[in-house]
Each structure stands twice: as C-alpha cells, then as structure tokens.
C-alpha cells in the first residue's frame, strides 16, 4: 500500500480512477434499476389494459363456454399467457375450511378481487414454478366472484431484455473506463510535473544556487505557486547580494578608520613625529577615528536591534513641537559656525504617541544630514497637522541628490559619490535608522530632492488619539 501512496501523482491517479469506476458502477445500477422499473411498469400497464378489455366480454352470471373459448383463442394468439378460472377452489372460496390445496389466489387477494380491484403479481409463483409479472382481473357478478382472468409474462423475458442492455452497457463502460483512465493519467502527469520541477528547483536553491527560474505558464494554483517560488528565489538572491554588499560595506567603512588609527599609532611609536604639536594632532586624529568607529558600531547595533522584532518602544504622548525645538537648540552653535540660517515654524498643539528618545534620534539624524550636505544657505523646519496625521518637513539648500540615487538613498551605507570618504563624519546608516524608527511608529519617511538645489525630508506620523 505504501508503494501506492508514496507520491501525489499516484494518489491523484488512484482517486481519479476510483471516482471513474464508482461513477460507472453507480450509474449502471441506477439506470438498470430505472430501465427495469420502466419496463416492468410498461408490462404491468399493458397487462392491465389487456385484462380489462378481456373482462369486458363477461356479461354476468356463471362463466359461459363461449367466453372460455374466446379467452383460449386470445391466449393462442397473444404473447401474454392468459387463462380464465372459475373453480371456486382455485379462487380460495373454501378458505375457512383450510383445504390442503395450493390455491391460485390467496385470501387477501380474494378480498381485493371481491372489491373489484385487480391484483398484481411480481415475483416467484409456486404454481408456475417461475418468476412472473402478472395481473388478475376479477369477474364479478354483483358481489359474487364468478371467476378471474389471469394474465402473466415470465420475468425471464424481461430479464433477457435487460441482459442485452447490460452487455451493451458493460462494453461501453469498459471502453469509457479505459479512455478515461488514460486521459486521467495524462492529466495527473500534466498536473504534477510542475510540482516535480519545483521540487528539483527547491533542491537547487537549498544548495545555494539562487539563479533558478521556473518556466510554468499555467495560471492555476500550481502556476501561482511557481510564480511565488520564482519570486522567493529572486528575493533570496537579492537578499544574499545585499548581505554580501553589507559585509563589504561594513568592512570597508571600518577599514578606513582602522588604517588611520594603525598608521598614526605606528608613526607615534616609531617616533617619526618630532614635535609635540604633531604628536597631539596625531593623537586627536586617532581619537576622531576611534569615535567614528564607535558611532559606526553603535549605529549597526541600533539597526540590528530595530530589524529584530523584539525591539520595544517606550511610547508616551509627546508634544512634538517642544521636542523638535529642544533638538534645534543643540544645533544652534554649529549652524552659527557654518554660517547657515535656520527657520522653523512648529505647531505647538501636535501631540504624538511615541518614544521620546527614538523620535529625537530621527530628528537628529535628519538635521545632521542637512547640516552635513549644506555648505551655505538655510535650513527650514516645519511641523503641521493634516487630518489625523502630523508632518515634519526638514528642508535644506544643500547639494541635493540626483534622481537616480534618490530611490537608493535610504539603503544602508549607500553613497551618492562612491569615491568620497567619510570625511564628513557620517556612518552611512543615519537615514536607514531614521526610516526604520518612523516605520515602527506607523509613520512614513519620504525624501524629495533636486540636484544642487536642496533636499526636503518629509516625516509623517500619526497623531495621538484621545479615546
């Protein structure tokens, strides 16, 4: 049995075959039954009509010889067996005396006949020693049962006809079975082939080859599954590439400060640096690069925590305007230093449900970026409400981002100018972290920019709902 059920194709084949055979058998018995019923019904009807018309010859009183002759003559001409009986013994007239004699009709039948209704017989009759379909018509003279006309056909005749029918049916059914099983097998093969393909493809993927593509054109569930499979494998492939890029980026980002630290510390150790000023300068460079590495590692840690589902926000109602204003306060010295103008217009009524530290981090990351890429001009910040949301626009007049880079700007370590180093002090993770944080606050972060004109970062956050 295990041999038969160890594959889906075999199971489907078994199901299809069983369904075909059951259907055929069922329809055979059903139609046989109907056929026989209709045929027997038909015979019964014609026997009744025949019997009634013969009985109309009876004029009352005792049965005449003339009537007997008529019935005999009719019997000799008809396919039906017909005879007339007037013997009271046969008609169970002596019944209460319990005569030891097999009468033609029984007590209950006699009662029916006395009421004037014909009696129908279907089945084995001891008197004729065969199965019959018969009809008994009473010949009544007032309330006296003077005789009966008994008409019957042997059931063998009926079953002969149904036998012919059965042979024809069996032949047709066999041809039909063979054809439908063949077609069923083909259909099952066609249905299960994509599944086998998919199995092979999955094995291929599990070995680390993600470049697989299934060519299945059907639009059904299996086709959809194949599409999903293709989609999945390409996603895995992309993710794999991203992972590789990420590792490359991380090592690249770390290598620069490490080589700084290594070079300057070697220079210090080998006492190549003579003056105290240079030594101090070198040490400051080493410190700067170490801080950068610290930031970078810190950001990476943040990012990995944000990406895991366990990250918990400590949400509370926050007056957003106040929070932004406090953040801006910290930047005022550096803005002044860089000679940048700052404009801000903050709606003081905006209250959101958020984690104070995290929202502050978002604002800082964006303002950091704006300051970093803006050499001159101004930075303006706006906070306003729109329906059940609030929006923060942080706009600068910096270098801007070209369209081709704009869509990738939120990726980790993405750099518009690949050749540029991190001399500006960023880790390349700020925007990615900001976007994640906004997302887990059910918000949205979009970047609009035009090259050489400036960049606008729009942050949408849901307002705090007072329920």
């Amino acid at each position: 049995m295990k041999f038969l059920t160890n594959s889906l194709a075999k199971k489907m084949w078994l199901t299809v075959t069983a369904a075909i055979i059951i259907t055929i058998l069922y329809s055979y018995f059903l139609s046989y039954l109907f056929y026989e019923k209709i045929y027997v019904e038909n015979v019964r009807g014609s026997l009744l009509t025949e019997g009634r018309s013969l009985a109309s010859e009876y004029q009352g009183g005792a049965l005449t010889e003339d009537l007997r002759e008529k019935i005999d003559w009719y019997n000799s001409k008809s396919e039906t067996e017909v005879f007339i009986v007037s013997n009271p013994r046969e008609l169970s007239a002596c019944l209460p005396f319990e005569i030891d004699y097999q009468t033609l009709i029984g007590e209950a039948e006699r009662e029916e006949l006395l009421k004037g209704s014909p009696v129908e017989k279907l089945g084995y009759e001891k008197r004729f020693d065969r199965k019959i379909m018969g009809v008994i018509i009473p010949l009544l003279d007032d309330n006296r049962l003077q005789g009966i006309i008994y008409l019957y056909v042997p059931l063998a005749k009926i079953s002969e006809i149904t036998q012919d029918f059965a042979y024809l049916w069996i032949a047709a059914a066999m041809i039909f079975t063979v054809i439908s099983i063949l077609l069923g097998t083909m259909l099952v093969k066609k249905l299960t082939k994509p599944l086998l393909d998919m199995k092979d493809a999955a094995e291929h993927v599990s070995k680390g080859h993600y470049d697989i593509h299934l060519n299945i054109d059907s639009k059904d569930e299996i086709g959809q599954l194949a599409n999903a499979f293709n989609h999945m494998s390409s996603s895995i492939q992309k993710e794999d590439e991203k992972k590789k890029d990420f590792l490359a980026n991380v090592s690249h980002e770390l290598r620069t400060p490490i080589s700084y630290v290594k070079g300057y510390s070697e220079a210090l150790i080998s006492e190549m640096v003579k003056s105290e000023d240079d030594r101090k300068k070198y040490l400051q460079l080493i410190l700067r690069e170490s801080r950068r590495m610290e930031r970078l590692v810190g950001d990476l840690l943040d990012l990995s925590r944000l990406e895991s589902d366990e990250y918990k926000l400590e949400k509370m109602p926050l007056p957003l305007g106040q929070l932004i204003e406090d953040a801006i306060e910290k930047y005022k010295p550096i803005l002044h230093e860089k000679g940048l103008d700052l404009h801000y217009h903050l709606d003081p009524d905006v209250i959101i449900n958020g984690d104070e530290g995290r929202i502050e981090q978002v604002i800082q990351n964006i303002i950091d970026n704006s300051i970093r890429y803006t050499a001159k001009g101004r930075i303006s910040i706006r906070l306003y409400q729109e329906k059940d949301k609030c929006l923060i626009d942080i706009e600068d007049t910096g270098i801007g981002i070209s369209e081709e880079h704009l869509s990738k700007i939120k990726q980790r370590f993405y750099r518009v100018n690949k050749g540029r180093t991190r001399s500006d002090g960023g880790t390349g993770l700020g925007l990615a972290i900001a976007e994640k944080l906004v997302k887990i606050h059910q918000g949205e972060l979009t970047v609009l920019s035009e090259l050489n004109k400036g960049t606008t970062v729009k942050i949408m956050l849901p307002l705090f709902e007072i329920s």
Partner: protein
Amino acid sequence: MSKKYWFFLLLIAAAFLSSCSEKRQPSIPENISFAATVNIKDMTISFVDLAKKELVAEWIMEKPYTGALILPDNDSILLYGKQLKTADLYSLKGGKLLDSWETGEGIVNGILLDTNEIAFADQNINKIRLFNLNGEEEKQIETERDPLTLLESGEENKLFVLSFNHEKLGIIDLESKAKSGEFTIHPSAAGAWLNEKSGEIWIGGHGEGIEIEQNIHVYDAETGELKKKIPAASMPINFLGQANYVYVLSHGSNMLYKLNESGEETASVSIAANPFEMAFVNNTLLVAGYDSNDLHILEQENLKTLKNIKVGEGPFKIVIRESVK
C-alpha cells in the same frame, strides 16, 4: 421530567390499563329472539333480531373466533376458534366474559348434545372432546384425523365424525363414549345429514384437489356402502332436514336446493355470495353469505327471500336463540 412527558406517560398507562380491564360488550336483552353470526374476517359477532328482522347489536371481539354455541341457560354463548387456547363463555345480557375454558388450540367445531354435553372436534390432537356445561372436560375419544363435521343421532345415541382430509367417517357410541366403527367416504367431505328413517347418511364436500364436488354422496349409515349420488352443484357443504325435506347449500355455485328425501329437487334458488352456513328458525331459513357479508331470511316453503340483512365481514357460523319469555 417535564409536565408534558408525565401527561403522556399517564395517557399510555391509562390506555394500557383500560385494555387490560374487562371489555364490556353491548347487552343483548333476554326477551328477543336472535340469530348471531360469527364473522371471521373482521372478528365480530352480529346479532339480528328475528322479530324485527334487523341488526340490533355488534360485538367487536379481540380474538379470531370461528364458531359459537348457545348453552341451555339461553344466556351463555360459548365462543371457540382453532387458533385459540381457550373457549370463552360470555353472558349475552351482561355482555361480558364469564369464564374461559382451557381447551388448547385446535377446536374447529362444537355441538351441544342431547345429553347437555358439549362435543368439540379437536384437529390438533385428532380427538373428540366431551365437556360438561361447567367447562370441565369429561372424556377424550380417539377418532379419525382432522375431524370436522359432527352429526348426532339422537335415536341411536351415536355421534358421526367426518374426517376432512382423510376420507373416513368415524362413529362414536355416546353410551360408552368410545369409537364403535368407521367406514371410508369420499375426500374433502363436509356437511352431512342423517336420515334416521331410512338409515341413510348424506354427505357433501368440496371435492379433491382441482376437482369440484358436484354431488351429495348417500351412504348406508350402518354398512358405509355408497348407495347413490344426488347432483347438487357445486360444493354442497351444508344440510338441514325438516318435515320430509332436506335443504342443501352449495357454496361453489351459490345455490340453495330443497330436496325431498329421495333426493328429487323441489325448489332451488341462487343466493348470497359464497354461502357456508344456514339455520332454521320457525318457518324461515337463514343463509349467511361469506363474501357478500349478509344474512338472507327465506321462506322454507318456496325459498322466497323475505329480507337481506348486512352483517359483519365473513359470517361463518349462525347460532339461534329463541326468546326466553
């Protein structure tokens, strides 16, 4: 249990108890003369007032009785049947069961003898059983197999027993209460009349197998010699003799014949449907139609029908009670 449920239980219990309790039948007054028919098909007993010539009461029975006897007290009716374990005695006036006689199954016929004893034909043990009027069995007498028709000869103090399927007539001496002789008769014999003057016994029957009996067989009551056959088509099965005439009922052709003692037909009439039973009362003759479910009242003289009364289904036995007062 809900109240409704209790109510149903009570109903069922009531129905059960009432079915167990003694069922009372309509009372038959003492002062009327009646003919009662025991109807097999619907298990009823129909009482016909002979003076008014109309149906006066119907008893619906719970057992398939096939025959009845009126006891000499003129108020007790004894009902019996082949499939019944008891013969039941009912009071006509009280309409209730008085006594049940433990007869066992197999009783097919019974007559009241001149000695005020009851002779039952028992087909299960193939014996004639004599009971007194208190329902005590006095004697069992060996006889032919399948005894059916019983005929008493008052003069000779004999009981003639016709075997239905075994072509025998047994003679029982009522003095000694023992079998005193037998002779061979024709098969499927039923119905008999004893002509004590000429020592003849007339026996009818249904005919054997597919054959239909067309004749009355006349035997010598002493020797058993077949003396002659009298045509009486077809299936003569009931005989009544009175005032030099014999009335013969043939159920196969629904004919009633009036014959003189030498067997010549003096009158005949087609009557009822499948008649089995007849009885005399005063100057009239009663004939019950088994299939026509009726009782015909005829004049004895010319067999003219006086009245036709509907009774229960399948009248098989007639018993007569003359009024007491």
